[in-house]
């Protein structure tokens, strides 16, 4: 029997959406400290909306986001980042005409630590993604899809987060590149970083994570240890299709 880790983040009854349109209908979710957690679901399930709510880009209409005893609801993205939650958004959203190093340094924009600490974290990013060091002077918009994803994750790392949220890790990337990214995330997790990965590719997500939540129609419909969910007949038939057979 494993001892459950202390919760890092606790969401209760989160409702949010865009103007009059409600997308999330009372989401309850708990993230364990020091784990990789996956949030899976089909297109339109509300995963990205939940992530945008978590990072302060959308203000929830109801519910509580509990982070170290503090409710994050209504806080700005800058405040949430300062609390230690970094968001690598879907589509990477890099500053395309800035070079790789400037993009990475912009990740540390809100930090008030000495330059040496930021330089140390930059070196850590380069150690995790050596490809970025080779491309440090290149405009981010000219990188390949995989390199852009590395740069986006690196930018997230530069804010020295306690929780790194990655929205659509594998979107548009080859299996080889996804494997490299998965290895990098595992290595970051071993160093103590908690990670929440949002994925449509259920196999990748469940293989990478320790625990997982399944989302559908703006609600969490299932949760548990990833290894168990991988063998759950309902999950297999709903998300793995022909592979389940």
């Amino acid at each position: 029997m494993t001892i459950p880790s202390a919760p890092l983040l606790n969401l209760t009854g989160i409702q949010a959406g865009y103007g009059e349109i409600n997308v999330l209908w009372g989401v309850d979710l708990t993230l364990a400290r020091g784990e990789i957690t996956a949030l899976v679901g089909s297109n339109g399930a509300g995963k990205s909306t939940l992530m945008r709510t978590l990072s302060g880009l959308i203000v929830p209409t109801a519910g509580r986001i509990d982070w170290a005893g503090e409710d994050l609801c209504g806080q700005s993205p800058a405040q949430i980042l300062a609390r230690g939650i970094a968001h690598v958004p879907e589509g990477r959203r890099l500053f395309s005409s800035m070079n790789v190093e400037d993009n990475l340094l912009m990740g540390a924009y809100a930090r008030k630590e000495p330059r040496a600490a930021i330089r140390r974290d930059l070196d850590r990013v380069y150690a995790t993604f050596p490809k970025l060091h080779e491309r440090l002077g290149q405009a981010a918009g000219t990188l390949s899809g995989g390199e852009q994803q590395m740069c986006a994750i690196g930018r997230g790392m530069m804010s020295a987060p306690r929780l790194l949220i990655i929205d659509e890790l594998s979107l548009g990337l080859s299996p080889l590149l996804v494997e490299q990214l998965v290895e990098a995330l595992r290595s970051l997790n071993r160093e103590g970083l908690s990670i929440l990965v949002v994925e449509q590719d259920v196999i990748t997500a469940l293989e990478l994570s320790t625990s997982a939540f399944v989302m559908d129609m703006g609600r969490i419909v299932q949760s548990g240890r990833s290894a168990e969910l991988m063998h759950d007949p309902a999950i297999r038939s709903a998300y793995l299709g022909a592979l389940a057979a």
Partner: protein
Amino acid sequence: MKQRVYYGALALLVLLGCLPFLDSSYALRIGTFACMYAIMSVSWTVIGGFTGYPSFATAAFFGLGAYCGGVLINKGWPLFAAAGAAGVVAFAGALALGLVLLRLRGHYFAIASLAVAEVLRELTNTATELTGGGMGLNIPVSVTGSSSVMGEASFFFWAMWALLLLTFIVVRLIQESKLGFGLVCIKQNESAADMIGVNATIYKSLAFAFSGVFVAMAGALYAAWVHYIEPPDVFDVLFAVKPIVMALLGGLGSPAGALLGAFAFLGIEEAVWRNYLQIHSGVLGLLVVVLLLFLPDGMMSISKRLSQLGGRRG
């Protein structure tokens, strides 16, 4: 390369500062206008070039500054104190207005910013007791303390030139500051800027305020220089459009480019006006279109293009 460009622009400014030694009132008049328009285009660079918000509010800031300065001088304030106060009013007003207007993006923001000058013009027209309304506002001729025409022309040239120097240095410092980097991030991807901790709403409002403060001060100096202002004169839509064309001509996002663009535009305008009196607006428009077609990145890209050309030949 970047540093060389800025030292070059500063050298050009110092050279322009020698204009009064030519002892020509015509040259001084052109020089004062060149400095005034350069203040507008360099200031516009903060909101339009760095932040990527196409502001048409320059005319509003200019008119607001002209009337603030004019009214305060009439109340007995010294010229520079009145100009400073006009800058403070514009900065505070733009900051407050920016918090509301800058929630709009792209064309919506452009149109809303254009409307600011129209609203201020109507308010000025209505506040007859304070501003003189449609009758305009007279400003005392004795603000400079100089009795000669050349003395006064030199005084206003120096004042406008010094303000341009201040504007250029401040805008350059903004560009190199944390604020400047934040603004560039907002221009490239506003939601990503939000995610890395840039408070986009505050930053955009600050950029809007900085795009207005020196323009308002220039407006106050202009009011004292011409001694008489009226709403259609100082809230003229051309004060909103010309700085944008100048910044585009010089190179979008570069204070040095905006400075060069302003001087080049006024030089071309003067030459065209002299040679094609009847059709000067048409010829000027055509020239600007042709220049922008062949130099879409402005004059600042000329050296880059020449080196590329040299590289291809080599």
